[in-house]
């Protein structure tokens, strides 16, 4: 297992509790990427332009690196190219920041062509502003003189830009295919339900529990990187449930852009299941819910949100109610569920049903004939048949979408 030292610079006047949570999250991220944390270094200080942390602390860090010999030094704070160069030079060890760590996790877990392209795009977009500086630093020794190597720097940046544009085109084509699939599903009467939430909230476990699947679900950040969709029957209505990649605090906008096609599963859904880990302390849940709202708010329009308080089995009823009460203003339509024990799943399905796009109710009288029977069988497949009464005619209480009702209009009661 690889070894890492974690470093975090705290802003003066920032809240200790928040800083601790951020450090814990960095530990979890490092664990997800396969690192064992061998030491942690923190400093409260305004950012240093050259090193991010103070010069004295850098010396301390360099000594620590010599003592414990880690594979990487991972910073919580975003580092500039110059800071990475300076820190690596003094510490004699590879230095990365949190965003590169997230990219590393994504890169190791990306399995499909699409997700590999998304990771590549995110990496390039992260690199682009730094491209000129990277080449400039690498070729510092080789500068022949006045205006030397300016061409090199520009051509590397141009290469990165070209590659970004090629990947964007390819992803756009893939997205077009996915859009048409989504529209097709909608037109076939499937409502789309997407699971969203902070990373490691238990979305995949809940997904497995709802659709009886066995997708990988681990107590680890970013287990899911590729969305998966399965059909789910909710009180007679077929919906398509999608498991998605989780959110994380301070996810940079270029990364959100790169994973837009993944996040579109959420933005185009009819219902969003906002999954929270209710076993965590109230303040942690609040912070994570805030991140979810922040990530989704611009894109979500007229979508119902159902908040799923997952891992409810870890709490007493009083504790659970206290959490729901404290988070009422951030948690619309809350339902307590335990994906492991299965408790609350029935209530969750009922809540999903309540928020599905409304279908109309009609009474249909079909002729008691072979044609009528075949039409009834078709109605069973396309809508929800609440009751059937066989007399001189076949009287059906039907709930269905508009396009189906228009087809049986000649048989409806006037």
């Amino acid at each position, binding site marked *: 297992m690889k070894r890492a030292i974690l470093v975090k610079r705290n802003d003066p*006047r920032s809240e200790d509790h928040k800083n601790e949570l951020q450090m814990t999250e960095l530990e979890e991220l490092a664990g997800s990427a396969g690192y064992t944390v061998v030491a942690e270094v923190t400093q409260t200080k305004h950012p240093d332009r050259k090193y991010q942390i103070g010069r004295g602390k850098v010396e301390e860090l360099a000594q620590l690196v010599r003592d414990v010999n880690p594979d990487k030094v991972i910073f919580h704070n975003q580092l500039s190219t110059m800071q990475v160069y300076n820190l690596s030079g003094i510490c004699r060890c590879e230095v990365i920041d949190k965003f590169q760590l997230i990219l590393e996790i994504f890169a190791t877990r990306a399995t499909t062509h699409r997700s590999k392209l998304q990771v590549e795009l995110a990496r390039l977009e992260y690199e682009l502003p730094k491209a000129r500086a990277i080449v400039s630093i690498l070729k510092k020794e080789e500068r022949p003189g006045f205006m030397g190597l300016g061409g090199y720097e520009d051509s590397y940046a141009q290469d990165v830009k070209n590659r970004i544009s090629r990947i964007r085109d390819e992803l756009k084509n893939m997205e077009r295919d996915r859009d048409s699939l989504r529209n097709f599903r909608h037109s076939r009467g499937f409502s789309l339900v997407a699971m969203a939430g902070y990373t490691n909230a238990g979305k995949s476990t809940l997904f497995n529990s709802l659709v009886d699947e066995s997708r990988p679900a681990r107590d680890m950040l970013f287990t899911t990187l590729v969305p998966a969709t399965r059909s789910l029957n909710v009180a007679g209505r077929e919906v398509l449930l999608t498991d998605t990649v989780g959110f994380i605090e301070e996810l940079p906008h270029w990364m959100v852009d790169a994973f837009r096609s993944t996040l579109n599963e959420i933005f185009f859904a009819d219902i969003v299941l906002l999954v929270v880990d209710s076993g965590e302390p109230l303040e942690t849940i609040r912070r994570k819910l805030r991140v979810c*709202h922040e990530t989704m708010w611009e894109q979500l329009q007229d979508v119902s949100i159902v908040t799923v308080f997952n891992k409810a089995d870890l709490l007493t009823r009083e504790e659970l109610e206290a959490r729901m009460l404290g988070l*009422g203003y*951030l948690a619309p*339509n809350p339902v307590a569920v335990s994906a492991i024990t299965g408790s609350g799943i029935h209530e969750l399905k009922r809540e999903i049903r309540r928020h599905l796009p409304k279908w109309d109710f009609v009474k249909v009288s079909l002729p008691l004939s072979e044609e009528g029977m075949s039409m009834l069988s078709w109605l069973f497949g396309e809508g929800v048949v609440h009751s059937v009464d066989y007399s001189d005619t076949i009287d059906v209480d039907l709930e269905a979408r508009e396009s189906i009702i228009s087809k049986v209009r000649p048989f409806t009661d006037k």
Partner: protein
Amino acid sequence: MGKVVYTYISYSIFLDEMFNIIAVDISGRHRIEDHYLMVCAAVAASVNPDHVEKVNQINIRSFRTDRAPDVQMVVKMIEETVSEMHFEGTVVTEPGDMYNRPQWIIDSMFPMDFKYEESLSERRCMEIAHHVSLSARKFLLRELDTG
């Protein structure tokens, strides 16, 4: 740890709860010639966690000063704008408007309940307040130019 304060409309906290908020945004916090011309917009709304139920009232006030606004001045501008409204609610702003100071410090400076934006609906109301203050300031500048 910031406290959460709200004016509840309905008794039920779990279902269909609604909250009264006043989202406030200030435009023009930059120097023009030798002064600052700012417009503060306050949007009183009833919201659910995920959508804006109703916008009850919008109030706009302009402020002109010679020095750059500090936190105290921002609090005073918000207080004056909100005091002219006929609706009550928790004042909501973006953290940047209060120079990213911790919520509890700002809360202690207001006589009414205060919090930073968090939920989807609060962010939507902030968006409305932002558009209103920006448009009102543009309009004001144009009128001053032509007048």
